[in-house]
């Protein structure tokens, strides 16, 4: 099949795509974007998380038909145009939310999806927002700290821009 979609802000047309391929396989094996990880292949660990039209999706369970004509954002697409880290990524570093790092790309994506949906989440809402993502290293506490801080910073920035 032929596949047309927007990947990290750039329109992309791919030919000779096997329909059976999952989005995760396409990203990792054909496009060389290895930020999204294979943790379970059954959609329970969240390491493969990406955004499809701004909403959280497990790319290991996303058939390509669901991507055709849509917009996909991976961890590689979160940084600014000059390569700067997003506020969320910076907060992950500042709050010690990264240990082995294998869950981190998916976790950052899940947090991004949450903040787009709910810009001012409580800590309990943050925990629910990342409940589809397993982290075996951190016990989640510093991840919740990071997301909470990034949310506050985003709101402050928007306030400045509005004012």
């Amino acid at each position, binding site marked *: 099949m032929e596949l047309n979609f927007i990947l990290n802000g750039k329109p992309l047309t791919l030919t000779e795509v096997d329909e059976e391929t999952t989005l995760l396989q396409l990203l990792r094996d054909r496009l060389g974007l290895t930020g999204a990880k294979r943790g379970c292949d059954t959609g329970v660990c969240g390491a493969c998380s990406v955004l499809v039209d701004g909403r959280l999706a497990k790319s290991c369970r996303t058939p390509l038909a669901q991507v055709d004509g849509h917009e996909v954002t991976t961890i590689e697409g979160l940084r600014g145009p000059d390569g700067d880290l997003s506020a969320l990524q910076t907060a992950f*570093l500042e709050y010690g939310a990264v240990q082995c790092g294998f869950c981190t790309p998916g976790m950052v994506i899940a947090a991004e999806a949450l903040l787009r949906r709910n810009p001012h989440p409580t800590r309990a809402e943050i925990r629910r927002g*990342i409940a589809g993502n397993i*982290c075996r290293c*951190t016990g989640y506490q510093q991840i919740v700290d990071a997301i909470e801080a990034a949310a506050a910073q985003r709101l402050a920035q928007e306030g400045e821009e509005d004012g």
Partner: protein
Amino acid sequence: MGNLRYVGHEEVRSVDGWARVTGEAKYVCDMTLPGMLYAKVLRSPLPHARILTLDLAPALALPGVVAAITQADFVEHGNFGWPVRDNYVLAYQKVRYQGEAIAVVAAETEAVAKAGVEAIRLELAALPVVGDMQAALDADAPRIPPATVETDGNLGETIILRYGDPEPLLAASPVVVETSYDLRHQEHAYLETEGALAIPEPDGGVTLFANNQSPFINRDIVASVLGLPPQQVRSIQPHIGGTFGGKDDVLYECSAQVAKLALLTGRPVRLIFTRAESMLASYKRQALRVQLQLGADEHGNLQAAQVEMLADSGAYASMTPMAAWRATMHAAGAYRYQAVHVDTQVIYTNNGYSGAFRGFGNTQAAAAVEMAIDELAERLHRDPLEFRLQNCLRQGDRTMTGNLVEHEVGLAACLEWVRERSEWERQRARYASQPADAPRRHGIGVACYFHGCGLGGEGTDFAVSTLKIERDYSITLTSGLTDFGQGSRTVFTMLAAEELGVEMSRIQMLRPDTRTAIDSGPTVASRASIVGGNAVRVTAAKLGQRLRLAAADLCACAPAQLVRAGEQYVGPHAEPHSFEEVVDHARALGLQLAAEGRWEIPAVEWNLETGTGKPNFAYVFGAQVAEVEFNPRTGWTKVTGLWAAHDGGVILYPQGARGQLYGGIAQGVGYALMEGYLFKDGVPQRTDLRSYRVPRAIDLPEIEGTFIETRLNEGPYGAKNLAEPVMVGTAPAIANALFQATGVRVQQLPIPRQPRA
């Protein structure tokens, strides 16, 4: 510590964070090479069987299959293992657990490799399965270990501890608790599954990228089963997605397999486990069955303990004898006794196989004794926290192995801290008076622990580090100890910068590589910060001394007169000199700007025959309080509060230390409530992350944690260890809280979910 620039500073950040948060960090599963082949493993469908037929021809006949191997492709059938050489990189004659690797196929694509595995003709003759430790000891039980290993049937090893004579003391104790516990297997569930990539080298050797914990051991095992000198096997660690003790033996197997295939085909070969494979084939935390007798006098002073343990090693020994040794050395907990005897048997079964996992035997031992101590306190009508404070180890006391603790002990302070922060007395009283028919029952419980530093009697405990000043004035650092997410690269970088008085950004720590680093033994036992950290310090001190000589010469003063202002060297007379100027001058003087340093933990000795000696040179301590909510209708337990205090000496890297604390506790919550890796007649019942649940963010409460700082003179800047022991107190604290909530004592971990409405 006011004059330290990095040690103990909140501002220090992970040196690997940037690569990981951007998704740019390459793990072995992210690495591909031109011409690379994909490997897939044929695994045993049965827990115990004789191999009758193993025919690779149908696989090799498939287009796209390039090679396939069995045990016959390795020296001595690929036999390996330490301390017991009972394992094979591919099954030889028999399979002893379900999921054991039998053959490996390398092919042009993963799909073809899978088809190749399915094409292999395998015929097995089922043998009787030994799924129970008691049954394994029956005289007529089928023998599991190979005949080449000396055992008494399925009894692998017996470990004893003899301190005083507990029998008369127990007989004379007015209150004795006698109880037993059944502690089940636990799966590591590191988010990155096992994987290795082998690249053939022109000299006939092989380079490995593997996510193992201990690259030097991997190198030596792979070299030995391939029949190569160790120098011809190079093992490099890429970024690693968590290990928790779980990436040793299973990685040696898979590294040897891909290395052999790379040599046979002359092409790079990569093998990455699927999650189901990882859960089936990797080793686990060993199940332990514990029988405990604890006695106290009428004043509530602990008198004696007698403990018997059975450790389920599964099909192979792996690290279970060592973990059982550590369990034995901690079986009566962090208390003063007059006498303690422990007898531990390590038993072969067909229940997968077990090895190292965070806490290394103490997770089980501490869980058992802390539940028993709680019961004893109750029988004495004493508050469980107060009872622990009365009996817990303090500086100058003797441990349960009879050894004097000469260093500072923060245990009582840990208990006091969790008591205050959890509002222990108030909550305890509140829950004591809750109505029996409440729709939700609440409880609060405590546990404390100690944990011997370093390998102890488990092995020689040393590390080596190197430092070199490069032409661009950056400094290259190596260590033989490694980082798989726990943060030791950050700690080593920080210690080198601290000792040399330079910016952390000047230090480039190389990835662990057996070609560039120096063998430092295994990266286990939470020893990296103490042993590896001291090695870095020693090395940096050597290099720093040479730089000071050069700086003193430049500043025309004695080295002792020099002070540092940032990176600059300042003498009493002349202008300050930059680091670069001092390095240039040192070079001009012909001083060597590379150094190597080694550090070894103070020697300890344990006599396995008499069960006496000194197991560890020092201990860490801690206490945790858990608060739970129990739903009698569903049997569901939710942890609603956790308070944790850990005495890890001086904390080097506070942000990383807190991460270890929270992460360890999360694994402890899993161990207590959800994570039983269960076998039924040797068949694993949960081999995916849907049925085997690990804690998610919603399963955990907000954790309040702290570090009680003491000073260990031998540790770098006074530091002790923390990564493993922080999980040790969690499960028993939850179990003890659940007792207050329900009035029922926990005898099994994970705690069975029992509706009581």
